[in-house]
């Protein structure tokens, strides 16, 4: 195989793997090198996370701090176990730095879907991940 076919072959291999990631771990089609940008409303502007921190005598929804917004953006774009865990660990560490108790962090990634025709919006849960912070 001549070496010059390597770039197009790489492009097709990454396109194929991107489709697999979209279908298996809900990677947004806009990312991952599959050229799916501007093809769907399933992207960062219509996804978000909610975070609930639990501890004895505590169950509280927390906002994402600016210092961990990048971890949030990664988890929103690709809610895989690895990226959700990284976000959960960052949340738990921040809680501890502020001397707030934390035993678990539950992260849910939400996506907005628009009804065909009427465009009525509805938020649906894409994935929920619970991190045991006592370990």
């Amino acid at each position, binding site marked *: 195989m001549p070496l010059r076919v390597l*770039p197009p072959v790489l492009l097709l291999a990454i396109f194929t793997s991107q*489709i697999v990631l979209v279908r298996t771990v809900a990677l947004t089609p806009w990312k991952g*090198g599959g050229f799916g940008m501007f093809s769907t409303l399933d992207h960062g502007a219509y996804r978000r996370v909610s975070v609930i921190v639990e501890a004895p005598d505590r169950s509280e929804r927390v906002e994402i701090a600016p210092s961990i917004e990048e971890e949030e953006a990664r988890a929103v774009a690709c809610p895989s176990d690895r990226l959700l865990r990284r976000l959960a660990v960052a949340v738990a560490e921040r809680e501890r730095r502020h001397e707030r108790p934390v035993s678990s962090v539950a992260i849910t990634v939400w996506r907005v879907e628009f009804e065909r025709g009427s465009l009525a919006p509805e938020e649906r849960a894409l994935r929920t991940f619970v991190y045991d912070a006592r370990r």
Partner: protein
Amino acid sequence: MGDWYVRPAVLGLAVLSLVSPGILRKPHTWLALAVLTAWRIAADWPLADNHIYLLGYWCLAAAIGLRKGEPPMSLKTSGRYLIGLAFACAVAWKLILSPDFIDGRFFRVTLLTDPRLVGAAQLVGGLTDAEIEANRQALEPLPEGAQRLEPLPIVESARLRGFAMAATWGVLLLEAAVAALMLLPNRPLIEAARHVSLLTFCFTTYAFAPVAGFGWLLLVMGAVQVRSSQRWLRNTYIGAFVVVLFYSEIPWSGMVLDLFRTA
């Protein structure tokens, strides 16, 4: 250009290539740029935009072409296939893989909510500022799956809906044309049609799409296809490069809208 540890290396290689044509033509320079681009994609995963991947393939193609000692012909072929395949992937997503493009939902919602497109939506669709704001609220979902008892109405003029459908099919057909023409074998008529389709895509798409870097990369890959005798065509590519810069720096649709309002 990536994080702090990638940026200086990329900028350093770019500056060295500008001052020394010898470095510019070394395959190792382009291989290093391809590796740095791949590193940037891995470090940013999954946030890198698609044109960063295309940039990586292009740098790799340049490294391979320079290694063979036939850079112009090799780059022409690689550029053609890379543009063709990238557009074919984009068409596959829009036509087959996405559930909300062909039925027009993507452009209907995006025209009403994306601040970069609202000016165009108002120009074409004739919506007022108040209607745009009301639509934004109507398209904002209640949290966690809750539903309104009475859904808020969405104001869409017939012209705006027509514009959304025209954009849907126009983008799809233009991208399919670029993909097909780039992947078809070389013939004089096909070569001419390639340039027309790619330049049309860049002149129209980047007036709205806020990814000038993608446009510039496509224009560079298109310009490589130009024969040395086609000076006017080369100058058109240079002009298109400047036009994409204009689109990215000037909020032209808002300015035209203001002009209409004051007239």
